[in-house]
């Protein structure tokens, strides 16, 4: 039987998270010999999608406090509602009926990842669904969830005009801002001095928008920070990205999500494409050590003792600690507190059609406002069962907050409860199952590797929308390995045998 060290590898990729998988996809037609390993026994790494039993195991593995700089996840726990024997009503389904996303990031319709998936001919193996409506949930000053109010964020000019809660002056101010923001790049002077100031002060000083009108605009920026901590330089490009994304793939929505478990599905499709090109995949093996030789390929020690040789090694910093001179960058780590909740109702009111006759969205964004504006908001991504992540008649809520203190989990629970109370269903939807955890984001921009043949890929950022920088970073890695022309990045012909939609029969 053949073993892994019979081959002289060109590239060893460590970890099957999204950045590494996109690199595998980019290299899938290069003719290079690729070995793609993952220390976990499942695909997806930090972006995996989990069944209930996989989530159980995952939570056990990540239950503790963070041990060292390589641990991304910590404090994981699972809570399950007691089953009160009422048949049919509010019961968890089969473990494998769930595909819970560790990375439920939405993709702006204008994200550069989408055309890359089309040009790399992977799009036909993926299914994208719309992220339709955006909502705000406001809790009253006393913080009681039972009085929480849900309001829809106007999704564009027409909505703004029809919004009865806005007076004419407010509408005019808002339109002025909308006109500015979609062309913000050409209007440096308008906002230059506000780049480092809070976004809300730009809205107020420059556009005369009263504070009460800020939350819906701020929501579109998907800032994990409090409004006072969200500078214009963060918010303006993101609001612009969302607004200019509306209508790209159809009226009434500006973001999409991949079916079957968020970014995990894109990673899987990318790995498959690499396997079709001959890449070898091995799960349950990580990299324990790398030995550099001056005049020959490096020796890579796998965790089971096997040794392979390769010209290149690529991975995210957490997988390459052995060959990084310093994983600690000057910027402090960012922590997010997250939860995934399975809800006993489809919450259909969160997923109205994107437009008349348009697609029915499978995703919604809900921003739960903190009572104290100095606190960060809680973002909840709701995915309907059409996302393939849960059985019919249920939905999944992915909640996250930039709080990383002991109260973080309580804040998330409160936000989910406020949302469920505010949707106005006659019987209040129940959380049947939930998982809580913390996630660490290490700023890895310049984690220097000890060798020219070791390529550090950036992990995903804490952004709630996919950051196109990830793809740019993968492109640089691909260029180093292949010396390729950047114009050729992820541009492939259809493979033989994959007829698109021609009628053969």
């Amino acid at each position: 039987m053949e073993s892994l060290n019979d081959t002289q590898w060109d590239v060893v990729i460590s970890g099957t998270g999204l950045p590494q998988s996109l690199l595998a996809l980019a290299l899938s037609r290069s003719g290079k010999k690729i070995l793609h390993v993952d220390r976990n026994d499942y695909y997806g790494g930090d972006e995996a999608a989990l069944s209930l039993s996989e989530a159980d195991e995952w939570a056990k593995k990540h239950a503790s406090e963070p041990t060292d700089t390589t641990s991304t996840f910590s404090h994981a726990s699972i809570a399950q509602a007691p089953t009160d024997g009422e048949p049919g009503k509010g019961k968890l389904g089969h473990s494998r009926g769930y595909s819970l996303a560790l990375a439920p990031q939405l993709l702006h319709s204008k994200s550069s990842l989408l055309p890359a998936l089309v040009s790399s001919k992977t799009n036909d193996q993926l299914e994208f669904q719309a992220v339709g409506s955006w909502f705000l949930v406001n809790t009253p000053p006393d913080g009681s969830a039972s009085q929480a109010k849900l309001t829809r964020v106007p999704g564009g000019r027409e909505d703004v005009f029809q919004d009865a809660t806005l007076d004419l002056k407010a509408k005019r101010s808002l339109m002025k801002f909308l006109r500015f923001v979609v062309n913000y790049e050409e209007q440096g002077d308008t906002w230059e001095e506000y780049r480092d100031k809070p976004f809300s002060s730009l809205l107020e000083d420059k556009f005369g928008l009263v504070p009460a009108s800020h939350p819906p605009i701020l929501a579109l920026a998907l800032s994990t920070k409090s409004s006072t901590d969200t500078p214009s330089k963060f918010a303006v490009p993101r609001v612009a990205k969302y607004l200019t994304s509306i209508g790209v793939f159809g009226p009434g929505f500006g973001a999409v999500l991949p079916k079957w478990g968020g970014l995990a599905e894109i990673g899987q499709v990318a790995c498959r494409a690499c396997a079709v090109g001959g890449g070898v995949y091995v799960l349950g093996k990580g990299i324990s050590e790398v030995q550099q030789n001056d005049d020959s390929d490096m020796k890579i020690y796998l965790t089971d003792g096997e040794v392979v040789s390769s010209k290149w090694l690529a991975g995210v910093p957490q997988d390459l600690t052995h060959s990084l001179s310093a994983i600690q960058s000057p910027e402090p780590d960012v922590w997010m507190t997250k939860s995934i909740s399975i809800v006993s109702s489809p919450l259909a009111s969160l997923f109205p059609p994107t437009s008349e006759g348009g697609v029915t969205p499978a995703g919604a964004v809900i921003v739960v406002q903190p009572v104290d504006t100095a606190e960060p908001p809680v973002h909840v991504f709701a995915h309907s069962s059409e996302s393939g992540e849960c059985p019919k008649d249920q939905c999944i809520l992915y909640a996250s907050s930039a709080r990383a203190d002991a109260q973080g989990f309580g804040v998330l629970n409160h936000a989910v409860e406020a949302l469920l109370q505010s949707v106005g269903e006659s019987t209040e939807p129940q959380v049947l199952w939930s998982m809580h955890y913390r996630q660490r984001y290490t700023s890895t921009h310049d984690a220097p590797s000890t060798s020219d043949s070791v390529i550090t890929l950036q992990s995903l950022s804490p952004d709630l929308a996919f950051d196109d920088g990830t793809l740019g970073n993968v492109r640089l890695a691909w260029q180093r390995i292949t010396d390729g022309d950047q114009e050729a990045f992820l541009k492939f012909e259809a493979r033989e045998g994959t007829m698109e939609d021609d009628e053969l029969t």
Partner: protein
Amino acid sequence: MSDGAGATAPKPSSSVKLVLLGEAAVGKSSLVLRFVNNDFQPNKEPTIGAAFLTQKCQLPNRTIKFEIWDTAGQERFASLAPMYYRNAQSALVVYDITKPSSLVKAKHWVAELQRQASPGIVIALVGNKLDLCEDDNAEAEQADAENETEEEPSTARKVSTKEAKAYADEESLLFFETSAKTGHNVSEVFTAIANAIPETSLKGPRSGAGGGTQAAISAGQDNNRVNLNARGEAGPKEGCAC
């Protein structure tokens, strides 16, 4: 929209992801080639890594577009298959009727699918290379004419239909014996799978949501799917991949 030959009136169409599993050289790729191209190549080079093909299957009331994942070569690392059967609605587990060890391997795959794949996955067990035991077929008719032993020394068959069928029944699998070489039973396997996919798990247009759908929804697809090829609302973009 399309003005295709009038013969094919628009029928609801849905995609079905199918994965092929089985020991090396049992004929997985040959079965796919027969189904997709109605062709057989005796000296086909082994699949590298994996292959992705599509083929349509016309049922009386709908069209099924199979998205076929043919796996290969890396069974030894047992790491490739999970990314193929993830979200697969159907699996074709193939063994070679002249090679008993290949049925053992097939049973492992069935067990793994039942443990790991989508709960509703439709699995077909397929004994391939039936042409190598042609005579055996004829004999089955006149079974006890001259001989009472089940296994003829003259035939290449090493796995009896009865044994495999009993196993398939026990595990609720569809079961066929095929020949990729002659084409015997090949399209039958795929048609049977298409018919066995529960209607509810098919993505099709909801009743009533028929006409007048937006550009972003490809014709005949469900009303959740966003079509990334429909970039920009206006503009007559043709969906041609060539």
